[in-house]
């Protein structure tokens, strides 16, 4: 036990997957677009198709940015925990190896925010 305590101090974590009504948490950030102050947190069913996230969810989350409409998804680079990642748009989150509380980012080469400021 790392924490100093007067007796045994061992309690369950607050955010285990079973608490999210069938969903898992996935964090998604768009590199170089800090107009959105932080990456987003989403609850998705593990069976959700990756392509449905990109096509159905990301527009609502990121669409405000003038760069969004110009994204060529074929050229987007993906990262999982900072390491290169190649999602299969037709597979589910689970089949893409994305577990509860994983973090992914996408980078859209050539699109670097408002006036190139990475905003």
């Amino acid at each position: 036990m790392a924490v100093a305590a007067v007796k045994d101090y061992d309690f369950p974590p607050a955010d285990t997957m079973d608490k999210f009504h069938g969903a898992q948490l996935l964090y998604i950030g768009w590199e170089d677009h800090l107009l959105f102050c932080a990456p987003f947190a989403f609850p998705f069913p593990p069976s959700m198709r990756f392509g449905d996230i990109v096509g159905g969810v990301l527009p609502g989350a990121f669409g405000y940015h003038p760069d969004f409409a110009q994204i060529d998804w074929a050229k987007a680079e993906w990262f999982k925990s900072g390491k290169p990642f190649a999602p299969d748009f037709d597979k589910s989150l689970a089949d893409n190896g994305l577990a509860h509380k994983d973090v992914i980012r996408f980078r859209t080469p050539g699109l670097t925010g408002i006036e190139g400021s990475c905003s």
Partner: protein
Amino acid sequence: MDMQVARKKLGLKERYAVMTRGLDWTPSYQKMEDIYPYMSYEGIKIHDWDKWEDPFRLTMDAYWKYQAEKERKLYAIIDAFNQNNGHLNVTDARYINTVKLFISGISPLEYVAHRGFSHVGRAFPGAGPRVACLMQSLDEIRHAQTQVHSISNYNKYYNGMHDFHHAHDRVWFLSVPKSFFDDAITAGPFEFMVAIGFSFEYVLTNLLFVPFVSGAAYNGDMGTMTFGFSAQSDEARHMTLGLEVIKFILEQDPANVPIVQRWIDKWTWRGYRVLTLVAMMMDYMLPKRTMSWKEAWEVYFEENGGALFKDLARYGITMPKCAEQIALEKDHLSHQAWSTFYNYAAAANFHTWTPDEDEMAWLSSKYPNSFDKYYRPRMTYWREQAAKGNRFYNKTLPMLCQTCQIPMIFTEPGDPTKICYREVDYRGEKYHFCSDHCKKIFEDEPEKYVQAWLPVHQIYQGNCFPEGTDPTVEGFDPLAAVLKYYNLESGRDNLDFDISEDKKNFAEWRGQATRNI
């Protein structure tokens, strides 16, 4: 009959010693470790409690006399402020949002500090710290009450403050200050003293109070200024308590040094992260700015803190490791923070807005290395969009740091274009952090932080809707339900300043105050 007794009068130190020391007895019915059960588990060794020195040497008669004088002065000014509609003298109604931030974010901490000092005062076997903690506990509840009294005047006329305590327990950004104090009061008594008495009250206090109170002075807010000064006069005693705590613990046993160093590192960082709110307040929310966050940090931490740690070097204590990263963040903190509240204006209990041209010129001049390059473009874009009726309201919930609970808005030290991502796998679960420092705090005591009540996760668990809400019904609007849970009225307490009732009312009332209508 003449009774002439010539005796030498006792000096302050001797008087104080006679009034406060040697008045208790060594227990004989119960063991010391049973009466004071929290004294050894943190690993701190104390050999001689009598070595504790009280710089201010206040006995109760002096305490009540001076505190009563402060209260009389304070309430006279609050009454005058109320009677005179003092709220109409502020520079402009945007300023009032700093007061909303204060009552919902800081005042509840004053109350918890009162409870914390009350608890640790009971926990220490030494008379010296007991007396000091007793007085500080009384001071803190006085602060909580004076703040509620002063700010209640604003609550009569402006929105967002009506249920500040309820908000503190629930609203997404208020978990940041709340969790800071939760962490402190669940720590042992020695850590609490180093965390609050030293790191917060000594190292960082000037970065909370001086900005808010000078801000109030510059912006015509006599109400806040008056409680600020009243509290500050107690703070000097709190600061000396904090410094004495550190010196006392370090002098008692060399084994204490590494434990205290770890606490200083942890709490300076945690306190600094909470001060993110102050940075943006200074640079973006004060219509008339006093100094920049960067300048305040340079005076009150780099210079002042520098002198302090030089003094403590003889014990083997070093400047907290995080000071380096904080220096790098100086140019960015307030801009990144304001961007966050601009993003999430729909979910906050105060308004936000974009800075105008004059204000951006000030920001450019204070931040020549960063504002124009990284932040002016987005502020300008937001401003232009708002003018077109397309004001940005981010409706998607952000990723949060597990330790400081702030959204992951902070960038890599040295590269302000890249979000800083750090993660840890612990017992089969993944945890995320905004920085190496928050990550280390977790790694040192994971058993605490895995239990964090993170607002975004709690919303997704369905725990942030009013009782009886059915999230499965057609057309369910989770954000609307969350606002109800927060007891905030959408369209009134939140959104942009320009469309707010506050702005409209202030203009109308000020107009009335200057004309014969």
